[in-house]
């Protein structure tokens, strides 16, 4: 089986490279490749050369990448604590390990082949190596200039780290699934690693909390306390495996690297054994009739999404944009799992209530300022990142372009309808952030008047959605005009050329957004110039309204102008991602 896995991996890699080279015959890929290579040159080699010139040295250092002195002292144990925390959190995450994601072809060919579940897992580990190797190579290349040998150590160290993390997460996923088994013996075995992790969390947690109760004057003190909490005794024993896998990439010499490698291999072997043992136990469950897929997939994960009632029935008449907005809403409501809502909503209310209560009861400026800043960051992040993340527009629905193109709708209506729901969602997030920030801004910033604070908030509430809509317009314009250069759905083109294309698109999007915002800024700025002496800070509200009105009109015009391009779009020009 190992030979077969290697054969699949090598052939796939070889053919992928061949395909990427062949597509360079198309100008768009060639341009992308040139930009991508230029970026690599500037980011790695030119940067390294610059550092050498600044340091007056011909070669980079042989040591690990430079860290602040406090990190040199306590970095490994504190980082080990961080890795341990991530490892503990992994038990609660609903996501599934990528190692257990078999492609359709793997299911067709390998699940029906006479191979054991254990061999299937080994196959996935082998197949994931190309990705891990590429990732660790990139980390080493982009690290602070170090000598060639140090880069090799960094790459190898990260490779082992990534491999261990992948296998650990697969083992956690399988163990979690075993805990749901109907067979008591299977569940009992699964409690062993679960109990060990829980005990570890208790031991380390108590030690950390004790140390953090001591007074700290800053970040350095906190790091020292955390290092003290984890450097000795039982907590250190608990954290040893997590520190061991972190050590190789950060060693300063080849000798220490080889010494550190032994410990990390030991951890890797233990984690691998745990994963394979988990699989064997799962086979017992599969033997009861769940079949091959159930052997490697937690039962909950293979269940298709359920049709939850959204409490909104689409009216049979009305604007087409609203029908598409409704479609987006259904996808969001049903795409978010019940678990997310169950925890996220009460948690959000809890945080809000507690912060407000503490603020009111103690008349403290600190917590209010914290909440205010966090809320403002949420609002700012929604405006800045929301349109990149919320892709429930044409960027997702181009996968259904075959269906969209058959609808008897004006292109402008389709484009606006596709954008409407994500604009509403991201704007709502921004409004919530602005509202909370404004609410908590009084005690947090007592020197700023009520009128000024709420003027800023209202101005943000008006201007934000316009900026969000403009960004969605730019992204959807790019999708329509350059479908081959935009990530459609969850697929993602890979390779230097694809990366170059993304860089070009990013630059084009920033420039387009600036151009779209400029008339609004001029209009809003004019209002501010004329009235700011009379109205003081209140003037920000009408200025923002003028800004928003101008930008929204631009969005409307853009969506209308895109109509002919949408009609002409060729479904065959859409890039199909690589699996």
């Amino acid at each position, binding site marked *: 089986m190992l030979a077969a896995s290697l054969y699949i991996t090598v052939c796939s890699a070889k053919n992928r490279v061949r395909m990427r080279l062949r597509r360079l015959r198309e100008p768009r890929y060639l341009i992308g490749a040139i930009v991508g290579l230029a970026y690599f040159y500037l980011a790695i080699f030119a940067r390294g050369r610059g550092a050498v010139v600044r340091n007056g040295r011909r070669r980079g250092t042989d040591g690990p990448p430079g860290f602040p002195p406090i990190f040199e002292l306590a970095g490994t144990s504190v980082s080990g604590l961080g890795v341990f925390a991530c490892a503990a959190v992994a038990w609660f995450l609903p996501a599934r390990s990528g190692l257990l994601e078999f492609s359709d072809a793997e299911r067709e060919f390998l699940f029906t082949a006479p191979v054991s579940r254990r061999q299937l897992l080994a196959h996935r580990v082998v197949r994931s190596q190309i990705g891990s190797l590429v990732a660790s190579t990139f980390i080493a290349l982009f690290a602070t200039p170090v000598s060639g040998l140090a880069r090799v150590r960094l790459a190898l160290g990260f490779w082992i780290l990534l491999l261990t993390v992948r296998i650990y997460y697969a083992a956690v996923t399988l163990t979690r699934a075993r805990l749901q088994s109907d067979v008591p013996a299977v569940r009992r075995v699964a409690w062993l690693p679960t109990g060990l992790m829980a005990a570890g969390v208790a031991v380390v947690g108590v030690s950390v909390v004790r140390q953090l109760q001591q007074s700290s004057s800053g970040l350095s003190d906190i790091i020292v306390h955390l290092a003290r909490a984890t450097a000795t005794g039982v907590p250190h024993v608990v954290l040893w495996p997590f520190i061991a896998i972190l050590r190789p990439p950060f060693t300063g010499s080849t000798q220490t690297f080889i010494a550190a490698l032994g410990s990390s291999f030991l951890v890797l072997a233990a984690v691998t054994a745990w994963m394979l043992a988990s699989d064997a136990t799962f086979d017992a469950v599969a033997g009861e009739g769940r079949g091959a897929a159930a052997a490697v997939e937690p039962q909950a994960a293979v269940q*298709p*999404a*359920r*049709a939850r009632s959204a409490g909104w*029935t*689409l*009216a*049979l*008449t*009305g604007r*087409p944009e609203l*029908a598409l907005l*409704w*479609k987006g809403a*259904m*996808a969001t*409501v*049903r*795409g978010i799992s019940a678990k997310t809502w169950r925890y996220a909503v009460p948690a959000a209310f809890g945080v809000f209530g507690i912060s407000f209560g503490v603020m009111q009861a103690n008349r403290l400026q600190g917590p209010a300022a914290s909440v205010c800043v966090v809320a403002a960051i949420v609002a700012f992040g929604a405006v800045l990142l929301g349109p990149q993340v919320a892709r429930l527009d044409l960027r997702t629905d181009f996968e*259904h*372009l*075959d*269906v969209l*193109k*058959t*609808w*008897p*709708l*004006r292109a402008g209506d389709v484009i606006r309808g596709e954008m409407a729901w994500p604009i509403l969602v991201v704007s709502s997030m921004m409004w919530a952030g602005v509202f909370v920030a404004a609410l908590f801004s009084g005690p947090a910033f007592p020197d700023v008047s009520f009128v000024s604070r709420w003027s800023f908030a209202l101005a943000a509430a008006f201007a934000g959605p316009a900026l969000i809509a403009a960004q969605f317009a730019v992204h959807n314009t790019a999708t329509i005009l350059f479908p081959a250069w935009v990530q459609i759905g969850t697929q993602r083109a890979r390779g230097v050329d694809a990366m170059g294309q993304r860089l070009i698109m990013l630059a084009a999007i920033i420039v387009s957004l600036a151009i779209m915002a400029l008339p609004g800024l001029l209009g809003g700025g004019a209002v501010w110039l004329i009235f700011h002496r009379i109205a003081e800070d209140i003037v920000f509200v009408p200025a923002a309204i003028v800004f928003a009105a101008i930008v929204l009109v631009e969005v409307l015009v853009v969506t209308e102008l895109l109509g002919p391009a949408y*009609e*002409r779009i*060729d*479904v*065959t020009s859409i890039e199909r991602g690589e699996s």
Partner: protein
Amino acid sequence: MAIAVEHFTRTYGAFTAVDDLSIAVAAGEIVGLIGPNGAGKTTTLRALAGILLPTSGRIVVDGHDLAADSIEAKKRLAFMPDEPHLFEYLTVDEHLRLVARLYTVPDFERRASALIQELELTGKERSLPGELSRGMRQKVVIACGLVRDASVLLFDEPLTGLDPLGIRKMRETIVARGRAGAAILVSSHLLNLVEEICTRIVIMDHGRKIADGTVAELASRAEAAAGSNLEQIFLKVTGRD
């Protein structure tokens, strides 16, 4: 003519998928579009549905040019592809409702309920595509096409994934719609189905139309033996016998 394809050509780079194709389908006619793999049948149907643009040529649906007057043309079209593309997070009922809204379907509730019964989707109204079998998803696509009064129906391998009962019902549905006056173009490799339900047959090969007529006319032109079925005629016409 309900469907008029005039000198339609579609190329992909240097490859010509459909070359100078002209077909006409009258109201009430059921035309079978057959041909070997890669003949250009699906490209033709996708261009007729407005998904692909012709490289050259013209497509007219009920008097409306698909390029110049696409909205009016598309209102009259229903395309049932072989691969069911459904929205992951919309239920069966919601798919029908969305189509009804986009195409302004009068008397939707009655039509939807009758179709759900006819296509044996009863009990699946609130299911998401992920909960349905391939055949069921295919039926949903067909229901979305039939829920409105389209005067032109395009079927690409309509029986893929259907069970024997579903196949029989689908056959009956296509014939009934044809009798009701719809112009129907059916692409299929199931030659016995095409022979049974179609009033006329168009054979394509290498992107070109190589024969057009009733089974009897095709047999006569191909100089096939008396009593030859469509399969024998097809093999003779395409030179694969």
